[in-house]
C-alpha cells in the first residue's frame, strides 16, 4: 500500500463560536504510534471523535486506507476506540465484552470464543474471561477495554486518554505495556493525552496541539530538542524564554539583543527580526564550560529538591521580568537568596521566530 494509512485534510470544526479544530492536516503512517498532546480544550479529543466517526466535521475530509471515511458511521469504519471511562458493559462478563464486536459482526460462537481468549491472553488477562468488569482493578479494566477494541482487528486503534484514570505508578507501567503491545500487533495507535511524559515515552510521532491547531509534529526527540513554537517549548517540558531582536549578521552567526544582554549563536537570520530563544532547564549551568554564553547573574528565589536533581527559579539581575528555570545536580549546595552566575552552551539554545 502506498501513501499514509490515515490522511486528514483541512479539518475544521466549531462548537458554537468556539473553534475546536482549525484547519488540521495530519498523516498517520501504518504501524506507527501517534500521540496527540495538548492541554484540555486544545481540540485533541474532538479530533479523535472525528476519526472514530462519533462526530461529523463541518469542514475537511478524513481518508483511511485511501478511502473517504468522513461520513462513515463508527460501526463501518476500520477504527476501534478505547474510551476514557473504558465503557465496559457492566452487565456482560469480560469475555462477552471482548466478544461483543465479533458477535455484532456475526462471528460464530466457537471462533469467537477462541479469538476472545487469545486476545485476553495477549493483554495478560487469560483467567478473567468469566469475571464481571466491576470485579477488576482499574488497570485490568483498561486491558479489557484494549482487548475489546483490538479483537475486531481495526486498521487504527484510537485511545482517548486511556491512562488518565490510573494512578501514577500504574500509569508508567501501562505505558510500557501499551508500547510493547503496539509493536507486537503492528496496528497503528492514535493516543490522546495531556501528559507530556506519557507522550514522549510512547510516541513515534508526536503531535502537539493548542487552541485547535497543530503547533508542532514530529519524532518526540526532535519536538523536545528543537520545538517549533513557544507553546511547544513550554508545554512539552519546561523552558526559559528570552525575547529579543536579531542584531548583526556575521559568518553564520547572529547576535540577539535579549532582555539579559546580547547572546551570540550560530544561525542565520535577518537583522531587526523579533525572535525568541528557548533554553531547557538542564542546559543552564552555574559554571562556565566553554564555549558557553553568559546569561548574567541571577538571584535564586526558589529551590525544590526533586530526588536526582534540584529545580531552581532564579530572577535575572539585569531584568527582573526574566525568571530562569534551572536544573542542577542535587548534591550542589544552593539555597534561596544566593546569587548565581548562569551559562548556557550556545548550541543548546533554541531559536524561534516570535
Amino acid at each position: 500500500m502506498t501513501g499514509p494509512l490515515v490522511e486528514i485534510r483541512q479539518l475544521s470544526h466549531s462548537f458554537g463560536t468556539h473553534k475546536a479544530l482549525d484547519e488540521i492536516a495530519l498523516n498517520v503512517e501504518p504501524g506507527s504510534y501517534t500521540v496527540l498532546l495538548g492541554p484540555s480544550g486544545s481540540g485533541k479529543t474532538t479530533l479523535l471523535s472525528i476519526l472514530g466517526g462519533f462526530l461529523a466535521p463541518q469542514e475537511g475530509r478524513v481518508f483511511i486506507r485511501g478511502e473517504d471515511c468522513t461520513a462513515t458511521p463508527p460501526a463501518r469504519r476500520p477504527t476501534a476506540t478505547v474510551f476514557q471511562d473504558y465503557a465496559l458493559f457492566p452487565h456482560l462478563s469480560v469475555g462477552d465484552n471482548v466478544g461483543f464486536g465479533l458477535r455484532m459482526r456475526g462471528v460464530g460462537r466457537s471462533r469467537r470464543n477462541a479469538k476472545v481468549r487469545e486476545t485476553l491472553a495477549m493483554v495478560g488477562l487469560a483467567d478473567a474471561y468469566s469475571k464481571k468488569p466491576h470485579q477488576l482493578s482499574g488497570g485490568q479494566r483498561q486491558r479489557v477495554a484494549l482487548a475489546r477494541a483490538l479483537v475486531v482487528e481495526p486498521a487504527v486503534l484510537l485511545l482517548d486518554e486511556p491512562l488518565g484514570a490510573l494512578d501514577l505508578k500504574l500509569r508508567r507501567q501501562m505505558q510500557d505495556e501499551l508500547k510493547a503491545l503496539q509493536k507486537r500487533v503492528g496496528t497503528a495507535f492514535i493516543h490522546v493525552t495531556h501528559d507530556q511524559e506519557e507522550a514522549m515515552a510512547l510516541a513515534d510521532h508526536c503531535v502537539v496541539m493548542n487552541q485547535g491547531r497543530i503547533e508542532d509534529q514530529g519524532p518526540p526527540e526532535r519536538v523536545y530538542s528543537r520545538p517549533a513554537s513557544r507553546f511547544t517549548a513550554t508545554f512539552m517540558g519546561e523552558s526559559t524564554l528570552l525575547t529579543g531582536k536579531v542584531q548583526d549578521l556575521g559568518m553564520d552567526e547572529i547576535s540577539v539583543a535579549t532582555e539579559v544582554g546580547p547572546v551570540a549563536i550560530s544561525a542565520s537570520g535577518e537583522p531587526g527580526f523579533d525572535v525568541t530563544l528557548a533554553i531547557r532547564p538542564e542546559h543552564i549551568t552555574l559554571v562556565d564550560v566553554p564555549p558557553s554564553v553568559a546569561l548574567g547573574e541571577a538571584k535564586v528565589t526558589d529551590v525544590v529538591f526533586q530526588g536526582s536533581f534540584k529545580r531552581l527559579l532564579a530572577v535575572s539581575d539585569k531584568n527582573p521580568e526574566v525568571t530562569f528555570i534551572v536544573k542542577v545536580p542535587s548534591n550542589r549546595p544552593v539555597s534561596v537568596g544566593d546569587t548565581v552566575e548562569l551559562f548556557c552552551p550556545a548550541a543548546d539554545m533554541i531559536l524561534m521566530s516570535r
Partner: protein
Amino acid sequence: MLPFVAMGVLSFMQHGGDGSASFDNYRQFFDNPSYWRAMVNSLEVTLTVTAISVLLAYPFAWILAEVVPLRLQRLALMLAVLPFWTSYVVRSYSWLLVLSENGVVNKALTGSGLLSDPVQLANSRAGTVIGFVHFFVMLLTLTIFANLKQLSPSYRKAAADLGAGPLRTFLHVILPLTLPGIMVGAFLTFVLCIGDYITPQILGGNNELLMPQLIMMQIGRRGDFPLASALAIILMVVVTIAYLFCARWLKLERS
C-alpha cells in the same frame, strides 16, 4: 411504629370478642372464597397495570430522552407529568367523566358510527386499569427517563464502534443496563397500586372488590377492625414477598 404493633395485636382478636387471641381472622380469609377473590382480583389488576404501564412508559421515556432535542427535554418531561398535579381523587373522577356511558370516549365512538351502543368502560375492571395506568405511566416515565439519562454516552458509542446497529445497541446494551431501574419502578408501581383504595372505588364499580376496598368495607360498614387488620397484614405480606422477589432479582443482576 406503634400503629403497626397495634394492628398486629388486633388482628388476632375478635370483633366484639373478649380479647382472647386466635387465628380466626386469618382462617376466615383463607376459608371465605369472596375474600380470596378480592386478593386474586387485586393481584390480577396490579400485575396488568404494572405490565401495561412499563410497556407504555419505556418507549415514551426513550423518545423523551433520545429523540426530543436536548433543550426541550426539561419542558417535555414537565409537560408529561403535569397531570400529576391534579388531586388524586379528582384525577380518578376525571377518568369517570371520560369513560362514563355518556362520556367523551363513548360519545366519540358512537357519534362517529364506530359503535352502535356505548361500551362499559367506567364501573368495570377496565376503568380501574385505565385510571391506574394513567397515573403510573407518568411515574414510570419519570423514573425510566432518569435512568436513560444516567447511562454514560460512551456505552452507546462503544456499541456503535464495535459494529452494533441502533436496534442491537438497544437490545444488547441499553435495555439490560436500564433493567434494574425498570424493576425498581415496577416494584413501586406494584406497591402503590395494590394498596390504593381511591381508583378502584371510583372507577371500578361494584362488580368486583379489590383488597383495599374489602378492608375499607370491614372498617366502614361493619366496624370489624380485627378482621381489617388481618387483611391488611396479609396484604403487607404479599408486598413483602414481591419486594424479596425483586430484591433477589436485582442482586442477581449486579453480581
